[in-house]
Every structure is written in structure tokens, then in C-alpha cells.
């Protein structure tokens, strides 16, 4: 292996241009993947935050007793889907309404009795806010005799789920397209590297080198190139993150496993592309 390693390193010295191109290609492709990951990660974080706000509200009849409420609250709190439960009195409801709808303040002030109902506001746990969970909780609320009506955001939850599904599809489509293009660039770059050294390869074979011996330095070079490309991509992604973060909007940095994944992906990519390119080309030399 020592010979192959020496040769692989020498290749970088001998054709820095080609090596640079391969590294740039891998880095660029993975940078795009990284940017994409950054976006995906931040969008999914944002979605999670929105999810945190998914609420089911039960409007109460005015004749609900404190005892009934006590029992109901305890039962509801024990549901696995429930994160937080808040009891909003009639007075609080009116205050909020007056606050939120200033143009109707006169209307509310003119009223002799408060027409707004008290309510129980249930906030769901992040992982438990699928449309099914929401409707489960809603049904449960509805079951209480003192609950007049249940409101859970008019398909709002479904909308979030649709956005998520769409986003997932977009991620798969765009990510796939980029991976394909990146693959083409890398394979081409490595084929050029082999092509540029076809003379060397043919001389090696004439001197008695086995196919494995001929292949090893190229494959190793591919691995190193991929590794460098992956590291560069991770660095570029970080730079992009820092710039966006500073000049545009607050972003979360990716979990470190994602970064490791980018670097590993580059390495594996370099390995596969070079072995395919070398094998295919060796038949032609």
C-alpha cells in the first residue's frame, strides 16, 4: 500500500490542476448538498416551532362547574399528546378579544353581558401533533358534556403537514438532481485524470504491472480527493451559514453528524467514482 499511497500523493504534486478540479467539483457538489441540508434543517426547525403552537381549544358552556373542570383538566393532562393545558375564563376571553380587535372595542364595551365563552386551550407535544393526534384530542374534549364546541385551527394542521410533505418531495427531487450532476462532474474529472495518465497506465502495464497495482493509486487518489472535497464543502457550508446568519436571518447550524456525513459522502463518492472510472478506462487503454 505504501507504493500506492506515495503515488497517489505524487499525483497531486504532478497534476495539481486536475486534482484541484476534482476537489472543486466534489466540494461544490457537496456544498450544494450542504446548503440544501442547512435550509432543510432550518425549515424543519421552523416547522417544529409552528407545530409547538398547534392548539385544540374547547369552548365551555357557561354552566360548567369548577368540579367538572378540575376532573377534566386532570384527565386531559394525563394524555400522552398533551404538552400544556390552560383554562381561559370568560373575562380573560373578553380582554383578549378587545385587545386583538380594537375596531370593535366600542361594540364590546357596549355589551351588558359578556357573550364570550370560557375555554380550555390544549397545546400538543411536538412529536404528537399529527392530524390524527389532533382529532383524537378534539374528540376527547368533545366528549365532555360541558364542552360546547371544539376548534382546532380549521385544517391548519393539515396544511402544515401538506407543506412538510411537499417539502420532502422537493428535497428528494432537487437533492437527487444535484447528486446526479455532481456525480457526472466527479466521474468526468476522474476520467480525465485517468485519461491524462493513459500513457502512464499503458507503460505500467507494459512493464508488468497487474490491474490491481495500476488501479490502487488512482482509487486512493479518488479517496483523498473526495475527502478534501468533503472537508472543503463542510467549510464552505459553514462560511455560507455564517454569512447568511450575519447578514440575513438567524439560522441554526447543522448537527455535527450531518457534517461528518458530508465528509464521509465526499470520501465514498471519490472512492466509487474513481474505481468505476479506472475500471472502465483500463479496458480502453
Amino acid at each position, binding site marked *: 500500500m*505504501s507504493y500506492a499511497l506515495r503515488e497517489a500523493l505524487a499525483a497531486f504534486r504532478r497534476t495539481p490542476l486536475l486534482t484541484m478540479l476534482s476537489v472543486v467539483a466534489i466540494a461544490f457538489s457537496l456544498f450544494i448538498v450542504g446548503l440544501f441540508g442547512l435550509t432543510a434543517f432550518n425549515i424543519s426547525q421552523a416547522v417544529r416551532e409552528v407545530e409547538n403552537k398547534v392548539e385544540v381549544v374547547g369552548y365551555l358552556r357557561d354552566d360548567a362547574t369548577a368540579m367538572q373542570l378540575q376532573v377534566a383538566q386532570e384527565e386531559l393532562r394525563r394524555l400522552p399528546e398533551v404538552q400544556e393545558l390552560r383554562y381561559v375564563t370568560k373575562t380573560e376571553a373578553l380582554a383578549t378579544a378587545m385587545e386583538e380587535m380594537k375596531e370593535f372595542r366600542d361594540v364590546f364595551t357596549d355589551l351588558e353581558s359578556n357573550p364570550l365563552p370560557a375555554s380550555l386551550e390544549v397545546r400538543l407535544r411536538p412529536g404528537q401533533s399529527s392530524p390524527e393526534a389532533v382529532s383524537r384530542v378534539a374528540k376527547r374534549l368533545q366528549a365532555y358534556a360541558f364542552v360546547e364546541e371544539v376548534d382546532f385551527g380549521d385544517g391548519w394542521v393539515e396544511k402544515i403537514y401538506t407543506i412538510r410533505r411537499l417539502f420532502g418531495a422537493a428535497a428528494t427531487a432537487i437533492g437527487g438532481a444535484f447528486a446526479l450532476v455532481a456525480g457526472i462532474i466527479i466521474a468526468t474529472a476522474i476520467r480525465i485524470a485517468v485519461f491524462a495518465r493513459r500513457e502512464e497506465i499503458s507503460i*505500467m*502495464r*507494459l*512493464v*508488468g504491472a497487474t490491474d490491481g497495482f495500476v488501479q490502487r493509486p488512482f482509487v486512493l487518489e479518488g479517496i483523498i480527493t473526495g475527502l478534501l472535497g468533503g472537508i472543503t464543502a463542510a467549510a464552505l457550508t459553514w462560511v455560507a451559514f455564517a454569512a447568511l446568519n450575519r447578514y440575513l436571518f438567524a439560522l441554526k447550524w447543522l448537527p455535527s453528524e450531518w457534517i461528518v456525513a458530508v465528509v464521509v459522502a465526499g470520501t465514498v463518492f471519490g472512492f466509487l467514482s474513481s474505481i468505476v472510472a479506472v475500471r472502465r478506462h483500463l479496458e480502453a487503454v
Partner: protein
Amino acid sequence: MIRLSSVSKEYARSGAALRDVSFHVRKGELVFLTGHSGAGKSTVMRLIQMADMPSGGEVRVSGFSSKLIRQRDIPMLRRKMGVVFQDFRLLRDRTAEENVAFALEVTGTKRSAIAPRAHRVLTQVGLAHKARAYPDELSGGERQRVAIARALVNEPLLLLADEPTGNLDEWAAKGVFELFREINAMGMTVLMATHDLDLVRAHPQYRVIELSQGAVVYDSAPTPATREPQQA
């Protein structure tokens, strides 16, 4: 060692390069291969290296037959021979010494043994002082001698030398040929394609095979055409 039996070679774009060529070179022989430019000498060399396969007939070299050899056995065959190519085939991005060492690395020689052997054989061809130069920094004759050194460094059983003195002056050519004779005397088989008829005439003790337009037209010491059962 080498046996060609009714070998022909056709190139799609230029027709027949060899027609019904048969000869047998025994172990330890030194044979000159002569003929006009384009007669087919280099083609014979390529067939013996199995860098090309005959269109018809059979080439047998050191136990391997062109009809039976598998792709992955070819490197084993090539390790038994040293080749001086007519156009040298040096790696441009390696020094003279590295080019020579390369032939050893390929065969998995111990690293510690490589440098001394490369150095010794460069000295033999009179190029020790140019060990660190790249091919582009060498004169024509110097390049040729690097190619010769590379062919010899493995101490092969068989040396194929295609026009190894074309870029050498008389004195250097004589030196190289003396080297070949020495090594031949130690048992190495040598097949040397050359135009240098002075050299051929000066050594009448060696066998001469002459090609013309792809056919053998003269063989000064043909081995009996009957197939001997001995190793081919």
C-alpha cells in the same frame, strides 16, 4: 523461449503487417531482427509482449501461448522480459532514476533494494550523472539509455530491444551492445531489432532474421521447424 508459428497480423486500417511468420528463438540465444522500415519488426516485438494478439497463428513465449493466455496472466509474462521500446516510453514526470525504479516497484521489489539496483544499471549504461534529470532534460541518446536501463533492471530472462542504438553514437552503441553480449553470456535471451547493419556484420556469430514486407526472407540459423516437445 519464443516461438512464432505461422503468425499473421492484420491492421484494420492498413492491412497486413505480418504474413505467415514462423521462427523459434531458444533460450540463451542472441538474435538480430532486421528489415526495412515498416517491415514488421516492432509488430513482432509487440506480439511477443502480448501487447497485441496475432490475427492468425500462435505466439508462444516462455510457456505462455497467445491462444490460451488469460488477461490476468499477461503481467506475469511481462515480468519475465525487459523491453526497450523504439520510442522509449519514458514517464515524463519522473526522473531517469525513478523511471528505472518504476519497473522494480511494479513487480513488488523490496523498497530498500530498489535504489541501489536502479543506480547500478544506470551506471552500466553510463548515465549515473543524469539520475536526477527528467526525460525532457535529457538528450536523445540519454533517453534511449534510460530506456535500456529500465529494461535491464529486472534482470529479465528475455530482452526485447527495438532499435536500441538509433540515437546513440557509434561509441555508445558499441557500449550498449557489449552490455547485451555480457548479459547474454550469463544466460539471458536477447532479441534485438536493428537497422545498424555495421553492428550486425561485425558480429557474424549471432543469428540474423530478416523481415521484408511482413515475411521472414532470411534466417541465418533457423531452428528445425519440427516442433520440439521441449519448452517453447
